[in-house]
């Protein structure tokens, strides 16, 4: 029973990680770029939400409605002024540029918000829970997981059936050939980044509701998103989702064994997948 509980808590935790991982999978899939500031952007949005909540009389839904457009705009700016200049075959410029951005953002947040941990005022939902077959589940984590499922499903549908989705897959397969077929790669990149950061806006509200955030938390979120994407298999959205579940469960089980082992267990599972199935658990066989 104790282990079943750990697994369920892990899956719920995975719901959070899936929200970080989706955007990363989308951006890497199309641009071959990893934004090292991915986690820091999420934390920035979280801290912004917390500050907004103190100023404006908005409920949680209201906060989401306000922050997601801000996040989309932030994604567009990030793409326009930084990422567009470093997209290319050489991974170094994009890594270094976003690495510099990450350090600058982290320290900017320290200046503005100081090193204190913060969270959204408890509105009841964060502590509400229900019992199912002897296992207690938080309402909020379940909501986060449902949200992650809906997002993965929706994004996957968009990629498979929409005009934007076809353009994105074409650009991911061969950018120049896509341009020759009338696809504007920069526009596709901008939409992909806007979606990725928009999802982070949603994740930011959940993160601030679920636990505390502080300016230096971004690196850990980046690593979790990355591990989820690799465990699941690059280039697959459901892979990233599943990878997030595996990571969440590994961390939850590690945590039950010893409180100091949770995150380490996640890393070890990631390394084990890399050693035994480097194409990821969901990757299509070539």
């Amino acid at each position: 029973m104790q282990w079943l509980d750990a697994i369920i808590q892990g899956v719920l935790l995975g719901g959070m990680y899936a929200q970080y991982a989706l955007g990363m999978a989308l951006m890497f899939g199309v641009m071959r770029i990893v934004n090292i500031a991915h986690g820091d952007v999420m934390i920035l949005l979280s801290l912004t939400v917390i500050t907004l909540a103190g100023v404006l009389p908005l409920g949680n839904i209201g906060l989401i409605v306000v922050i997601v457009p801000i996040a989309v705009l932030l994604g567009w700016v990030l793409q326009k002024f930084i990422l567009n200049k470093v997209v290319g075959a050489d991974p170094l410029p994009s890594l270094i540029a976003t690495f510099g951005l990450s350090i600058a953002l982290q320290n900017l947040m320290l200046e503005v918000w100081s090193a204190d941990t913060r969270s959204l005022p408890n509105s009841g939902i964060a502590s509400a829970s229900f019992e199912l077959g002897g296992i207690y589940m938080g309402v909020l984590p379940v909501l986060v997981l449902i949200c992650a499922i809906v997002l993965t499903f929706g994004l996957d549908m968009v990629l498979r059936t929409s005009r934007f989705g076809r353009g994105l897959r074409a650009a991911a397969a061969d950018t120049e050939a896509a341009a020759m077929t009338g696809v504007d790669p920069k526009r596709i990149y901008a939409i992909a980044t806007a979606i990725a950061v928009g999802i982070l806006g949603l994740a930011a509200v959940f993160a601030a509701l679920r636990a505390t955030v502080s300016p230096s938390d971004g690196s850990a979120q980046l690593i979790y998103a990355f591990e989820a994407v690799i465990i699941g298999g690059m280039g697959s959205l459901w892979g990233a989702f599943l990878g997030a579940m595996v990571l969440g469960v590994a961390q939850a089980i590690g945590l039950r064994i010893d409180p100091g082992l949770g995150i380490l267990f996640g890393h070890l599972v990631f390394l084990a997948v890399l050693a035994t199935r480097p194409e990821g658990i969901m990757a299509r066989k070539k």
Partner: protein
Amino acid sequence: MTTPILSTHALTGGYGDFQALFGIDLHLDKGEVISLIGANGAGKSTFLKSIFGLLPVAPDMVRFEGTPVGGTPAHQMVRKGISMVPEGRRLFTGMTVEENMRVAIDNARMSEAEGPWSRDRLFQLFPILKEKRRQPIENLSGGQQQMVAISRALLCQPKVLLCDEISLGLAPKVIREIYAVLPEISAAGTSIVLVEQDVSLAREASHRLYCMLEGRITLAGASHDISREAIAAAYFGAA
């Protein structure tokens, strides 16, 4: 004289510091098929890429229906009415035959209903593609992939079609099959630039012919009037 649909004027270009083209003057009239021949490294593909906005050129170097378009990004060239069958096909892997076609339809100059080209018409032209429409592109043979590449370019509803070495690496039977559709493309009002290494194929399929050597045009004329000797001299540079 009417304005050519596509023309280049003292076009120079290349990759970075490496100049590959030295003042190319070429024109294509409406409804015409021209071919561009030359040995490997003569600059044929570089020339097509320069026309198509994939390599930087000055605006005046390329005119489309009389207006300067040089250096316009490729995706906007498609909207103006130029499309290209790239060397090596460059299809979108991980997508089906029909999805590859739909990327072109999504971004075409005009809709599938308005334009001359529709999936149905192409499926008539290449019946095998209809059969394989839901197959991933990787499952097709080289010749079938070339048919998809041509279909994809045509579904952009182009006024000018640029074909880069569409016979390369294909069996003679398949080459004949593919070249057999060129008259129909031409009849639909599309002008064609064929880049070819196979001289006799190029001669047969085109009205006029240009020969390139080391980044320059060394011979131009009506395909059937040019002697084999003249072509050989222009092709290999023998004085």
